[in-house]
């Protein structure tokens, strides 16, 4: 098999004030894949993304890029990043093009929003800013694009422009996209691989298309056998809901329960719910 990896992470650790934020992570990302990282607030998602982008140095461990990936081909979009605030859009474009050696700037997104090039960057709204920033990065034809919690902040029209631009990047440049989002529904149909983070580790790392085989739900009014792995349990006065993970085919013949398929929204909710439940214990 051809080695398709673009980033390899080995035994990554990050501590803040003796508190472990990233806990011995090892995983890799493939060229051209679109990954969603989700999880509770404070689970370490953004810290991990910053580390991938080289904004933050780990206490120990390694992040290796495939040797052909140049720094100029890595883009990061975050609402917390400051751009050249006092520059006009036009000046910002000229500066960015110079630094990243862009010979053909992609103006289409900026034009679709009718943004005036003589405006100062600091006057842009959150959504306009996201699109402007994305235009700068798209023009770099990035091999890796890291997006931190941006999609939920922007309105439906701009979100569609944003997603269309990502689709074009994946198709035309085969960009690897890693996005962190706590509301995943806005990223809709694009992610192919889902990672859920909790206390600096990934408690789920699965291809989206395989998820419905690995996690099921039973609705019942009694307790279930102990050897069925329960990820999360929801109880009300009339019924109990058990979320089963990892589900095995043999459960179907062994137990006479109605193991139901659930969708991605419910899957992520049950994982995060499981994290809260564990914390209470």
């Amino acid at each position, binding site marked *: 098999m051809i080695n398709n990896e673009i980033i390899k992470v080995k035994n990554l650790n990050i501590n803040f004030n003796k508190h472990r934020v990233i806990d011995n992570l090892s995983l890799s990302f493939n060229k051209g*894949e679109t990954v969603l990282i989700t999880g509770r607030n404070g689970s370490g998602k953004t810290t991990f993304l910053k580390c991938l982008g080289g904004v933050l140095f780990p206490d120990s461990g390694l992040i290796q890029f495939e040797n052909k990936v140049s720094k100029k081909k890595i883009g990061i979009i975050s609402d917390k990043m400051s751009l050249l605030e006092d520059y006009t859009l036009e000046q910002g474009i000229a500066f960015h093009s110079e630094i990243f050696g862009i010979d053909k700037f992609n103006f289409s997104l900026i034009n679709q929003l009718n943004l005036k090039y003589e405006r100062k960057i600091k006057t842009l709204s959150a959504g306009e800013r996201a699109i402007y920033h994305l235009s700068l990065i798209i023009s770099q034809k990035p091999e890796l694009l890291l997006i931190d919690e941006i999609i939920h902040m922007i309105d439906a029209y701009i979100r569609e422009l944003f997603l269309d631009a990502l*689709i*074009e990047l*994946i*198709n035309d440049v085969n960009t690897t996209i890693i996005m962190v989002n706590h509301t995943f529904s806005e990223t809709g149909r694009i992610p*192919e691989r889902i990672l859920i983070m909790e206390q600096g580790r990934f408690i789920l790392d699965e291809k989206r*298309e395989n998820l419905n085989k690995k996690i099921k739900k039973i609705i019942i009014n009694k307790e279930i056998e102990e050897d069925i792995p329960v990820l999360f349990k929801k109880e009300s006065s009339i019924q109990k809901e058990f979320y089963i993970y990892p589900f095995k085919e043999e459960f179907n013949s062994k137990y006479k329960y109605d193991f139901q398929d659930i*969708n991605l929204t419910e899957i992520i909710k049950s994982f995060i719910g499981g994290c809260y439940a564990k914390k209470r214990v």
Partner: protein
Amino acid sequence: MIKFNINEASPVPLYQQVKQAILLDIVSEKLNEGDQLPSIRALAKILKLNPNTVAKVYYTLEQEGFIEGKRGSGYRVKVLKSRIDKLKISIIEAELKDFLEKASCLGFKKKYINDLIGRLLNDK
């Protein structure tokens, strides 16, 4: 244009939903031999899907012999009578199995179901 009813709230994987929509149009002859399918980029943008998902659908459909891709000219429908017939049979069998399961849940005997189907067929 193929009618896609993609639902991300469904537990059925997205690529399966897209594949089913195309197959259904081929079986019901809304898509015919030689018809051009939208490019991967265009379909991804219309359905807001990852282009890799669309590529996977086209790739599997090509492997299964329902469409044909040519470098530079995109994908076209390839209708093989025997394959289509097989597919039609598998669709109707699945529906019937579903029906029989429901009937047995409701407690109907085989003889009754058999007679019922015969009677309904004659009414038509």
